[in-house]
């Protein structure tokens, strides 16, 4: 609070206004961090989905190749 003291004295701002301003700034930072987290989370989830798909495709192609190799032997 004492950081705002010169402002308080110079502009006759009430302590309530300062508390409100501090809360607004706090909320601003909170929402900014939510924004950044969510933006990256969306991309990370998509990358994880791609990794899962890659694994599934590798499994699928390996099993198909094995199946095709075994067929003529029967």
């Amino acid at each position, binding site marked *: 609070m004492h950081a705002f003291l010169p402002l308080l004295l110079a502009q006759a701002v009430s302590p309530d206004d300062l508390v409100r301003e501090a809360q607004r700034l706090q909320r*601003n930072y909170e929402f900014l961090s939510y*924004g*950044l987290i969510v933006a990256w989370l969306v991309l990370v989830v998509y990358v994880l989905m*791609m990794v899962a798909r890659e694994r599934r495709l590798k499994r699928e192609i390996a099993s198909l190749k094995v199946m095709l190799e075994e067929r003529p032997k029967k």
Partner: protein
Amino acid sequence: MRDKILYLLGAAAVLIVARNIYVISGLPGEEAQGAIFKIIFFHVPLAITALTCGTVACAASILYLVKKEMKYDAVAVSVTEVGLAFLAGNLITGSIWARIIWGVWWAWDVRLTSALVCWILYASYLMIRHAVEEPTQRAKLAAVVSIFAFIDVPIVILSIRLFRTQHPGPVFFSSSGSFPHDWSMIMMWNLFAMMMLGAVMTMIRLRQEEVQREIDSLRRLAHAF
């Protein structure tokens, strides 16, 4: 080798963004909006990358319809999927900004609505692809849908210039913009990193599409026996 280059490029893009987050955290807040303003450094590059993906998808779809080569269909689906993820990030960051500045999560403003419609159209494109089994028919139908969906891209871009919207006007690539030079540089670096990330993701997705096609042909071969 190709994989290693892709992963290196992806890591470089992530490093650039991480460095930018550090630089942006040290910037002062905007006079009227405060710290939440800094979300623009991610919101705008996400949008530009997503709309670029839409444009590439449209070009690939036209090429598919003209040349009838499946590789263009693979490019279109890969780039659309990546673009959809970026557009989702753009819509969410915009919504979080709006909650602080406008007091609401969403407004049915022309820019916001057209961007949401764009997301829905590209999501429908992916859903339609799942619904059609036959590859050639699927590619043809998807190409038409992709070209149709692209109509919305210029509407999203021009909406803030052509209509009176609640969304802030352009601050980049515009004579009316008042963005300081050093902030613009950070924005350009972020845009470069996002584009690079988008390109890497598209290349990886494209390779998966090629593997999927190989699997489909192996399946047909297995059924032929």
